[in-house]
């Protein structure tokens, strides 16, 4: 196997390994979001949109720096989307078509598109609208594996377990009986699949069509790889046989096999290994070479920039946009519950790249991708889905894996104070209030002890009340509420605490919020004043659950 393939396979294995390990407990020795941090387009676009320096994705700049030396090695060796495309191209790309399409000048023209895509996206970012989620290769591939591939593999595993269940009766296979694979579910999985599949199917047109024509990270690296220190050289042994032209997966070699578009070359070394004359090597060039000009055309660049600005403006004026912090009308109407530690909404949407790391790591599967509720540029950003699952009190994983700081890393103690919303009871739906049933599930599940069961005049059974200053918005009550359909207790963002910096604890202290169940231990049962038929002989109201003898 060729050197590049081996490295590519190993690094793809690393990508999958890190994604798999994005779960509790996180490995301490490596950030599981490492690959996302390496995407230079994420670095540039996110920092422009967020208008601030962000440490973790700054690794992308290092990748650009290395590109000055060895060209677009990232695309050929590191990028998991590139690896996936290489794999799928084996089945999708027509070999005959590849040779035909690699020849001729039209190929190098179409590769201009990616620069225009880059210009457009960066222009939108200048307006504070980040479309990074849409076309950043690392955000896209990570999300696709998280939302599409991972749940399907789990389901396959579950099917396998079900099929082998009978084996558990055999000696030595007893463990199979309790073997369990927890299925995760994600919204927008089908949409994500369509985008992912669409990108792979582009291989039908040309091999690595995405990398040649669309990828904005590829464009960025290509700009830094115009004339890398180590690059493709063809010496006099070349017989102009054209094999390298036909086989180049990127179409980086023009009609003349001695001329290379270095910005397109991903240093896969295939041409060197295939050349029957051994005329190709990758090194510092000894003599001047013919260069390939990159003429985007001023009009095209201007048009791309204008399109980006238009797309940015559209995102800002759209009804569900979160931009415009000055407008209370916009702030007030959001119904999204963001993960604990999420920075204030507008900044959040600017930073979030929709990579899905937080959704993968979330142990309860409450973090779900948003469709359009946060505006077009909030697509695939995370929200908690309380009806489906609660946010675990003793967990801060989402903040640990977020590569762009959209979710802050908070210590477990701090995280307890990061209130994400408040629960309120819909008494007309609550079966304790409305049907006088013996239900206390919201009270017993509440990890913050924010719900109190009280006796009221009208009901035989006790009914729940929410103490809003204790409610963290975790949503366990909403999840477990036995009322079918809309829960009778639901979390709204009301009262959420979103801080870009500073301590949640001190904020909570200032506003009298208490998120420790232990601190409530002094609180005793104080029944309301009850009508006579609900008092015992001593004139006392009954505590919840007991009946008069």
């Amino acid at each position, binding site marked *: 196997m060729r050197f590049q393939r081996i490295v590519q396979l190993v690094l793809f294995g690393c990508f999958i390994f890190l994604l798999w390990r994005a779960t509790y407990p996180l490995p301490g020795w490596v950030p599981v979001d490492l690959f996302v941090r390496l995407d230079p387009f994420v670095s540039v676009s996110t920092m422009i949109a967020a208008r601030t320096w962000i440490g973790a994705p700054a690794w992308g700049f290092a990748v650009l720096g290395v590109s000055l030396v060895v060209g677009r090695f990232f695309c050929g060796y590191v990028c998991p989307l590139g690896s996936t495309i290489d794999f799928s191209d084996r089945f999708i790309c027509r070999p005959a078509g590849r040779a035909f399409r690699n020849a001729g000048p039209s190929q190098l023209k179409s590769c201009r598109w990616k620069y225009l895509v880059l210009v457009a996206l960066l222009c939108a970012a200048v307006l504070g609208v980040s479309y990074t989620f849409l076309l950043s290769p690392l955000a896209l591939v990570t999300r696709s594996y998280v939302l599409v591939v991972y749940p399907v593999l789990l389901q396959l595993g579950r099917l396998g377990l079900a099929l082998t269940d009978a084996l558990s009766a055999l000696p030595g296979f007893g463990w199979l009986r309790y073997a369990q694979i927890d299925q995760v579910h994600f919204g927008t999985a089908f949409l994500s699949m369509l985008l992912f599949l669409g990108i792979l199917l582009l291989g039908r047109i040309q091999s690595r069509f995405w990398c040649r024509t669309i990828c904005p990270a590829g464009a960025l690296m290509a700009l830094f790889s115009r004339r890398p220190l180590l690059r493709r050289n063809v010496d006099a042994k070349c017989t102009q046989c054209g094999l390298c032209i036909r086989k180049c997966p990127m179409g980086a070699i023009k009609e003349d096999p001695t001329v290379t578009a270095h910005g397109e070359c991903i240093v896969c070394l295939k041409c060197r290994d295939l050349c029957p004359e051994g005329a190709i090597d990758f090194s510092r060039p000894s003599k001047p070479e013919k260069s390939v000009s990159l003429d985007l055309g001023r009009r095209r660049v201007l048009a791309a920039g204008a399109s980006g600005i238009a797309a940015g403006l559209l995102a800002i004026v759209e009804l569900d946009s979160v931009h415009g912090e000055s407008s209370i009308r916009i702030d007030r109407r959001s119904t999204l519950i963001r993960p604990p530690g999420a920075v204030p909404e507008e900044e959040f949407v600017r930073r979030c790249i929709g990579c899905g790391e937080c959704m993968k790591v979330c142990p309860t599967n409450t973090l779900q991708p948003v469709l359009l509720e946060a505006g077009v540029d909030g697509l695939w950003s995370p929200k908690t889905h309380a009806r489906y699952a609660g946010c675990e009190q003793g967990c801060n994983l989402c903040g640990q894996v977020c590569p762009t700081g959209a979710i802050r890393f908070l210590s477990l103690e701090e995280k307890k104070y990061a209130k994400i919303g408040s629960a309120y009871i819909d008494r007309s739906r609550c079966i304790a209030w409305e049907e006088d049933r*013996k239900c206390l599930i919201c009270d017993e599940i509440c990890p913050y002890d924010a719900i109190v069961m009280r006796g009221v005049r009208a009901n035989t059974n006790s009914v729940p009340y929410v103490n809003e200053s204790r409610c963290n918005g975790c949503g366990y009550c909403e999840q477990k509420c036995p009322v079918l359909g809309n829960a009778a207790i639901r979390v709204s963002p009301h009262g959420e605490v979103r801080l870009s910096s500073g301590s949640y604890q001190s904020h909570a202290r200032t506003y009298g919020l208490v998120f420790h169940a232990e601190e409530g231990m002094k609180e*005793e049962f104080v029944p309301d004043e009850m009508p006579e038929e609900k008092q015992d002989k001593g004139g006392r109201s009954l505590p919840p659950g007991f009946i008069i003898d």
Partner: protein
Amino acid sequence: MKRRDFLRNSALMAAATVVPSAWADDGSMGTTPYAVLAQGSPSAAVKAAVDGLGGMSRFVKKGDKVVVKPNMSFSNPPSWATTTHPEVVKELVAQCVSSGASRVLVLDNPLKDVELCLEKSGLARACELFPDTSVLGLQDRKFFREIKVPEGVDLKSTRVMKDVLEADVLISAPVAKCHSSAGVSLSMKNLMGVIYDRAVFHWRYDLHTAIVDLCSAVRPHLSVVDATRLLSTRGPGGPGKVIELNTVIASADFVTADALTVSLGEWYGRKFEPGQVKHIRQAHERGLGRMDIGNLDVKKVSA
């Protein structure tokens, strides 16, 4: 449940409840009391209580598959009295193992996250050294099988843990605590942890009636109530007032075990009769067991 299983279980139950109560009633065979209240440290009290009933070998025979059902539904520390004390469970498991049990499963379908519950309650660690013993929180539907509830008034069928249905012996080992819907959560309410769908008890059925229905189909052979500390207010999740009672109550009759615990404890600062808890009263009236503790041979021991 197959009819044959049901008949066999019923026969076992009849043997476990009717026979000792007959002894107690005529008062002449005072060697085996109907129920025992033992005071002492958790493990000593469990040992004294079970020994007082004739020893674990009366319930667990060699080769039996045993299920111990503690309350490990909450990820709270033992001091909150929302979960069974780890020492209580440990002692029970030890006795089952030394009585020759071929397999001991400590099972619950916890309300909260399984791993956290197993860890924080201390139960996983308490049982880790015993052979052929596992502590498991089962939540996946594949672990449950639907059974009919022939005597059910509200509850006609429900999904029960397969392991419980296949066990030779079921021991209900709850912690003593109040419960803002059921009044108290003891060895009867504890059985809601062996079924798949609990929520339906709250929204479709009368909670108390459904609890009794469930107990009519899944009857524990032995009930050991951990009242080493009792959650007196704000149950079942706590945190509330915890009263140190250093007592363990054991009986083959789960209704009696619960009735004794109710009258022993103080709830929201006051005393209650067993009949003031609707599911205990109903179980008594439906003949599942006896709450008239004044008429029963109840032995008190100190360990």
